[in-house]
């Protein structure tokens, strides 16, 4: 039997050297053109008019305000979404109740809805022609064309991000540990922090990182609800559009370079977290099939 270890593995389908090299070559060239080039051009264009323009753009009050808007939006939307994700995962994976599958589908709806449709939908809730519009106007509460609208629209587009990382994992881990902890007298919160959280922390962080990237980069939904008021309700992606249409391409790319850096950071964090087991889906459709906790 020992010689099987030394025997070369038989060639698999597609292992012929010529085919292999050609396919790798085609994929690498296309990948470089379609994925890498857009990233590279951001840097090239951002510095096309020198360091001074780059620094001047980033130092401009409008840019600084846009960065602040983006950061504040993320600081509100991401923690709220994380809390929702944890609550949704806890209720769906630790209990059985009617309508669970429907709830799972509803949570995933924002993935399928165009951000523009999301923005329009919010207009018909909080806008003047919407359900609450007249009431909000009477009390002089501004939701649309202000920070609250931007935060709400961002929460819509990212609603599934944390929940869908936690649910498959918590489903797979079952309920035995939590039940043991509770039967030994631990409170619900203590059970979650001491028993559940250590097992899902990387998946949680993974969801948070992806959620943050999407919130900071959201364009379509936010562009409808923000009203695009320069220096007031512009987030960084909207600021980029504004500069671009103002024929300040170098400025637009300078602002874009910040978001590109965020994207690169997100990918690095994603890879690091995947090494710790987060985000790994063995096969498709990790939709939480209801598993009874005991036969």
């Amino acid at each position, binding site marked *: 039997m020992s010689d099987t270890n030394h025997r070369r593995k038989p060639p698999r389908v597609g292992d012929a050297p010529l085919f292999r090299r050609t396919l790798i070559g085609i994929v690498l060239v296309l*990948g470089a053109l379609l994925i890498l080039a857009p990233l590279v051009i951001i840097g090239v264009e951002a510095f096309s008019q020198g360091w001074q323009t780059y620094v001047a753009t980033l130092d401009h009050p409008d840019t600084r305000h846009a960065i602040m808007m983006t950061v504040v939006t993320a600081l509100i939307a991401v923690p709220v979404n994380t809390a929702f994700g944890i609550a949704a995962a806890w209720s769906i994976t630790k209990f059985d109740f009617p309508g669970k599958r429907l709830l799972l589908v509803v949570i995933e709806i924002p993935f399928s809805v165009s951000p523009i449709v999301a923005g329009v939908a919010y207009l018909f809730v909080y806008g003047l022609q919407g359900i609450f519009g007249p009431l909000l106007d009477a009390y002089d509460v501004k939701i649309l064309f202000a920070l609250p609208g931007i935060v709400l629209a961002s929460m819509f587009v990212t609603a599934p991000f944390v929940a869908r990382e936690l649910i498959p994992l918590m489903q797979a881990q079952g309920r035995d540990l939590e039940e043991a902890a509770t039967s030994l007298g631990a409170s619900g919160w203590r059970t979650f922090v001491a028993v559940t959280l250590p097992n899902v922390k990387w998946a949680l962080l993974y969801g948070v990182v992806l959620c943050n990237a999407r919130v900071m980069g959201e364009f379509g939904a936010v562009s409808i609800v923000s009203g695009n008021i320069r220096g007031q309700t512009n987030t960084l992606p909207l600021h980029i559009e504004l500069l671009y249409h103002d024929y300040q391409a170098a400025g637009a790319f300078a602002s874009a370079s910040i978001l590109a850096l965020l994207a690169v950071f997100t990918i690095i964090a994603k890879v690091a977290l995947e090494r710790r087991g987060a985000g790994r889906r063995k096969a498709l459709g990790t939709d939480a099939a209801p598993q009874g906790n005991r036969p």
Partner: protein
Amino acid sequence: MKRNVLPGLRLSLGVTLFYVGLIVLLPLAALAVKAASLGPAEYWSIVSSPRSVASYRVTVLAALAATVFNLFFGLALAWVLTRYRFPGRRLVDAMVDLPFALPTAVAGISLTALFSANGWFGSVLGQLGITVAYTPLGIMIAMCFTSLPFIVRTVQPVLEDLDPALEEAAQSLGGSDWTIFRKVILPLLSPALLAGTSLSFARSLGEFGAIIFIAGNQPMKTEITALLIFIRLEEYDYQAAAAIASVLLITAFVMLAITNWMQARALRYTVKG
């Protein structure tokens, strides 16, 4: 039946239902009500107006073309990443997620810079007589970029789990590589391929940020449906915006149902007995 001893059902389910209701369902319901408040005749005249229909046509055709391209390129990419070892493989694997991580507006302006007449790619393609920026081809390229990861990431895990014994058996029976790929591997991959394809197509139908910079946005020619909604809003024509948005919303729900069905099917094939 055993009583569930875990605490927190009321709190966690309450928070979940409140959040889903307020953030997801309420806005969509408001949109549906607004669209339904138009009479059937008025609704139909808006959604079937020549400009609306032209926008559906350009959106659907570009999305189809982009999805077909991604079907081949995404499969090749997933294949190369799982079956071959070469320097830089991990880097390429990580880069596949860039279209998800890069904000769409950023992708939009950089693709436009690359493909405009004096850009890196645009100048070369221009000499061949191909114009990408401000044509339907540009819309297709933007859709290719934003939806590529869907196919790679749905096919990759299935390729990784493929049992080498199946190929060996086919090889021992004298099958050529191409025959084995067609008759053994492709049928095993096809549920995942279909699921990835429908995700990619659905995403392309709703994409906005990456497209509007490169599309040119000419009514009847290069105006996508999502942009038409935006334009109707800027004209304060809220009813038209609601009606056209409801078309996109219904399409999204249909695509969601198809995708769920396909994923359930894919799961049935990939879970080993």
